């Protein structure tokens, strides 16, 4: 086990590093105008990063040791479909959670 000094070194350095990453553009660019090509790419940040974050977790869930799982897959498809069709985040979360819980109880 890592000792106390080393642990706090990790915590503080990780905290500073994470803040640095989050502050990078907000702090340094501020309200200066950014070039149009950059803004055009930034418009797609959320829609590119969030699906990339989720896709591997859906196909290879950590809790099943990376084995694809029908219950989780069904819940994911239901969540996405409801979100896409209704544009309502909370309806999507509710349906996804309901599918996940009911299928988990069944199987």
């Amino acid at each position: 086990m890592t000792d106390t000094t080393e642990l706090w070194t990790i915590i503080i350095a990780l905290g500073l590093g994470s803040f640095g990453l989050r502050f990078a553009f907000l702090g340094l660019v501020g309200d200066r105008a950014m070039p149009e090509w950059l803004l055009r790419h930034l418009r797609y940040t959320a829609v590119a990063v969030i699906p990339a974050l989720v896709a591997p977790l859906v196909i290879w869930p950590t809790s099943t040791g990376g084995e694809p799982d029908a219950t989780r897959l069904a819940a994911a498809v239901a969540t996405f479909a409801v979100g896409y069709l209704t544009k309502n985040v909370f309806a999507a979360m509710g349906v996804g959670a309901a599918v996940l819980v009911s299928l988990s109880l069944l199987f």
Partner: protein
Amino acid sequence: MAAGTAMSSYWRGLRDGLPFLAVVGPFAMLFGVLATEAGLAVHETMGFSIVVIAGAAQFTALQLINENAPTLVVLASALAVNLRMAMYSASITPHLGPLPLWKRGIVAYFLVDQTYAQSILDFEKNLDQTTAEKFAYFLGVMTPICPPWYLFTFVGAVLGESIPPSLGLDFALPIAFLAMVGPMLRTPAHRIAALVSVILALAFAWLPYNMGLLVAGLGGMMAGAQAELRLGVKP
């Protein structure tokens, strides 16, 4: 008047952020439990959640500390996992960049997956907001997400191993993010960006240190920007 609209933006943000409590609670508790199992004291576990305040990076660091990895490897891996935060920072700057520096500092500290995704979804949907209203909305979204992150880390750390791992709880996080993806797919360019990012994320999932996420993120952004140019779609 201005304070009134900011206040209503805050409450609107708080309401929109509330469902994330169901995700953050279990996730934070899990970190508390695992950190305790790894031998961290309660104040050290809390230090992690308050100073670092980044779920995925905290779990990565904890995993590597458990494996007795060298400090530099722990830091490099956990920061690589957090590199997407720089993209969030850039993406939200056109909206919150005009704020005074100290307020931008506050936004930066609380800029996590959920606060970013929910805020950008709202900023792009409701275009007529002032910077003050956007800042208030962001703080509203943050309220049911970040303080509970500390609180439930504490609960997990104190209760430790007495919490049974319940079925399907691990999947609350993917469900919460997936729910947000549907409403984001407003134009063909958005749909192309998402599709390319998913394909790249799965194709490059084998890369170490979560680098596949960055490849997919950048690839998706480039695909979206190209599609916007070629299809001539309005942003």
